Structures are given as C-alpha cells and as structure tokens.
C-alpha cells in the first residue's frame, strides 16, 4: 500500500473543500498514513468471492403520492441563512467574471 504524501493530502483537501493550513497538511499526512496502514487489512478479503454489503437492510425506494402538503414558509426556510436577499439564499459568486 502506498504511503500518503503531503501533496496527496493537499489534493484530498481540495476535493473535500477543506482549506487546510501547511501544518495541518503535515499533521494529517502522518496520521492518515498510520490509520490507512492499520485499516488496510480489509484487503485480505479483496480477492475472495464475497458480495459487498453496503447497508444492513435491503433498501427499496420509498415513494409517496404527489400531493400538495404544508411545508416551511420561505421565512422559516431562510431564517438561518448566512445571507439572504429578495426571499432567496444569497451566495458568493459561482461563475467567474469573464
């Protein structure tokens, strides 16, 4: 199993939308390497013909009839928003300027 480098942690942090500081990158690289080393023993079953279990229950999609029902008011839904404008969630820019 490959060791986890600082660069790899930086890449993971970008994927996970976490702005990590330089010292955090070093710290996590060591810790993640230790943890992955310890949990890697699951791969001992990798080549066995065992079906995977993703969930303890057999999951089925649950549907309800499409009826209009009471729900939160816009005011309630927006009450905890970090920023709002014209009864909408106000977010920072998503697309670039150009």
């Amino acid at each position, binding site marked *: *199993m490959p060791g*986890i480098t600082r660069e*790899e*942690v930086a890449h*993971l*942090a*970008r*994927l*996970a*939308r*976490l*702005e*990590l*500081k330089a010292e*955090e990158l070093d710290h*996590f690289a060591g*810790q*993640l390497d*230790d*943890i*992955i080393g*310890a*949990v*890697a*023993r*699951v*791969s*001992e*079953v*990798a080549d*066995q013909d*065992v*079906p*995977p*279990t*993703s*969930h*303890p*229950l057999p*999951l089925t*999609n*649950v549907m*309800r009839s499409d009826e209009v029902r009471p729900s*939160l008011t816009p005011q*309630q*839904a927006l*009450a*905890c*928003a*970090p*920023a709002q404008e014209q009864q909408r*969630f106000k*977010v*920072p*820019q*998503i697309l*670039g300027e150009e």
Partner: protein
Amino acid sequence: MTDLTRLTAAEIAARIASGEVTAVEVTEAHLARIEAVDEKVHAFLHVDREGALAQARAVDEKRERGEELGPLAGVPLALKDIFTTKGIPTTVGSKILEGWIPPYDATLTKRLRDADVVVLGKTNMDEFAMGSSTENSAFGPTGNPWDLTRIPGGSGGGSSASLASFQAPLAIGTDTGGSIRQPAAVTGTVGVKPTYGAVSRYGMVAFSSSLDQGGPCARTVLDAALLHEVIAGHDPLDSTSIDAPVPAVVEAARNGSVQGMRVGVVKEFAGEGYQAGVMQRFNESVELLRELGAEIVELSCPSFDKALAAYYLIAPSECSSNLARFDAMRYGLRTGDDGTKSAEEVTALTRAEGFGPEVKRRIMLGTYALSSGYYDAYYGSAQKVRTLIKRDFEKAFEQVDVVVSPTTPTTAFPIGERADDPMAMYLADLCTIPANLAGNAAMSLPCGLAPEDGLPVGLQIIAPAMADDRLYKVGAAVEAALTAKWGHPLLEEAPSL
C-alpha cells in the same frame, strides 16, 4: 420528601400519575440539580428551562383534567444535541452549527413531546458524533461523574454523564460504532442500540447513514425499555425505517429471565488490549448467567477481527459524503465571504474554520477511501468484510439466542490520554462495532467495578435484528441478580458531586 432526582423514570411516572408529586416539581428538582452540578460535569450544551417547565405544566393540567397519561408522562429527559429541536439550538457539538435554530423537530423529538416526556435540554457530544470520549466537542469536554478527570465515553458522553450525575433519569443517544453503549459502560448506566431502522433517523444529523441508530439511555433496564417503546416504530419520513411492529420490550424487561436460553461467548472478544479487571467482571457475569439457568456456548466469529478496520473505512466514507451539505450556503457558519471569493472558496474556508480535527481527519480519510484507484482496495473490501461479519452473526444466532461480551476493552481513560493518537482512541469501540456493521440490536448494562481502578465495567448483550426484546429479557435478569448481590444499584457507589 425523597430526592426526586434519585428516582427511576418508572418511579417518577408512577408518582406523577398518582398525584403524589407534580411534573413541575419533578422538573424543578432536575433543573436545580443541573444548576448545582453541571458546571463540574458539563453534560449539557443548552438547558431549555422555560420549555421544560411549560411542558411539565401541560402534563399536570392534563392530569387535573382527568386525561390518561402515557407511561413516561412528566419524566425529564436529556436529549443528545444531534436531534433537531424546533426553536431550540442544535449544534451537533460543532462550531459550524453554533447558534443554529432548526425550523422543525426530528421524528424522535416529536415522539418524545407527544408522549409528554419533558425535554430538559441538549447534551454534549463529540462533534458530529465522531469520537469515543466527548473530547472532540467544539464546546469543551464532559467529565465522567465517577472521576471528573476521566472521559464519560463518546460520542454520547453528555447523555450518559447526565444520567450518572442524576441530572436526568432518561437520555437519548445515537450509536454509529458504539456511541450509546460505550458511554453507558464507562459511566455505569444502561444504553441500548436498537435494531438498525427501528428508530427513525429523520431529523437526526447524519454521520454514517448505514450505521447511525438512535436509542435509549437510562439508569435501569426497565427505564430503557419504556423509552424504547416511545421512540421506536415506523416513520414514513425515513426510507430506512423498518415497517414492522416494535418487539414487546417493556414486557420483556418486566419478565427478566435467562432460564433455558443459550448465550454465546465469542472467542474474538478477548485477548490483547483488554484490561484485566474488565475481563474479570465479564467472566463473573458469564458465570452468573450460567447460575441463572443459561447454557453458555463458546463461539468463534473469525471476521470480527477485521470489524474495526472495516468500520474506519465505511464510516468516514459515508461521513465525507454526508458532511458535504455543510457548504456555508443555506445555514450554519459562513466565513471569508468578502465579495472577492467564489462560493467554492467560501465553502472551503468555512469548513476549515467550522470543523474540528477529528471531523477533518475522517472527511479526508473517507475522501481517500472513495477516490478513484483506491475504492476497491479500501471501501469495496470493507463492504466485503461487512458481509463476512453478517455471516458470522447469522451462524452464531443459529446456535445461540444472544451473544455477550465486555462492552469496552478498558474502563474510562483520563481526558487527554488518547487525544493525539487516533488509532488508540478507535480501539474503545472494538467490541461494539460488529453489531453496527450487521444492524443487530445490542445493549450495555453495568456489571461491576474494575478492581484495579474502581471504575464501571459494562456487559454487552447482542441479539439478532428485530429481536430487541431478548436484550431486555436477559438484561433485566442480570440487573436483578447483580443488584441483589450488591444490595443496591451500582450507581449508588459513585462519588457524590
């Protein structure tokens, strides 16, 4: 007058129903106890004094009108801060939700209110339920009432500590890898992880959706059963909720017996890393079960050795996905939004500030385990291990009615001892994790104090899915026998605060 905070939930409910005390008197007694001791224990993140008293008054009025009261009407309860509570702050022990006031109640919260249970407040927990010590709370650790310099277990440390310090007779926890049972074990209380899907997850902040399970925490097996019946049952708002009758857990708790039962002892739940005093009390419990009429069967569950490894791939993987919703856009913290940064940058800055180290560690671990090139080796293999563990349990339950083990390998460790060593911390859930991976029902109840440190030891009972009643039948028998032997409940030996 008797100290109302020392009574069990069943006793409190009976006294309120008979008119001997009012729900308001009971609630006031517990609020006074919280005021007196919680500065030392730090079990609560938020005490809802006014809300609790209003609910208690409503119970008293109901009684005066001659309306029938439910079995736990007027009994105070401490609710883990992972369940949404309309109009009452919900933080999940995290800075990212500090000050958030949910606009809706979780199904569990609603069921408690409908049953006239008095919610005293929200209890401290490891951030997003990640941890085994309640040291990862963004709002500071909780102390173990047996020794305030030690951990009360995690992630539901606040809930179990509130029980052990007599601040509440009932509490609610959630168990993803042991977060109800492990705190119960180290605080000398009772904790039950019901069958996966038995208690609705709607409004319970998700950590690892295929493992998370809410459940009852109490000081006696009967109290846990009474609470279990209130919170369990099908919920159309949760697609993973089981649509089947709840087993008769209260009846089982009232008729404790192991006569003629086959009880399995799993070889893999012993060995290196287990404290001598924990094993001693566990072995005595097995002997007690034999004396009470159970047949003891030795079992081997070879895949249990890989359960911890599988758990620490599956839980972080699911958490990395679940916690993506904390993006600083619709609720919670937002930092770095100075008009020059993109939404993506604001999200990354907010998550860096709002999440603590354990949450970041698990998000990174999950992102790694799910990333292209590593998926099969880690997450895929962990799911295969999960199948093998399920098969081990199925084989075991062909031979026995329940399986028993120590709940935790050691008693409560000192705060700070394992803080910088994630792998050492993860070992605290060694015995509890297999039941989460397979979806079984499991309970922890006190079985004595370890001779070397005088701290509580938990006995774990595991039953097949949907056979939760067996936990209560066995648990009640063990509790009755041990209480008779000690001459009092174990918690009476805890130091007074």
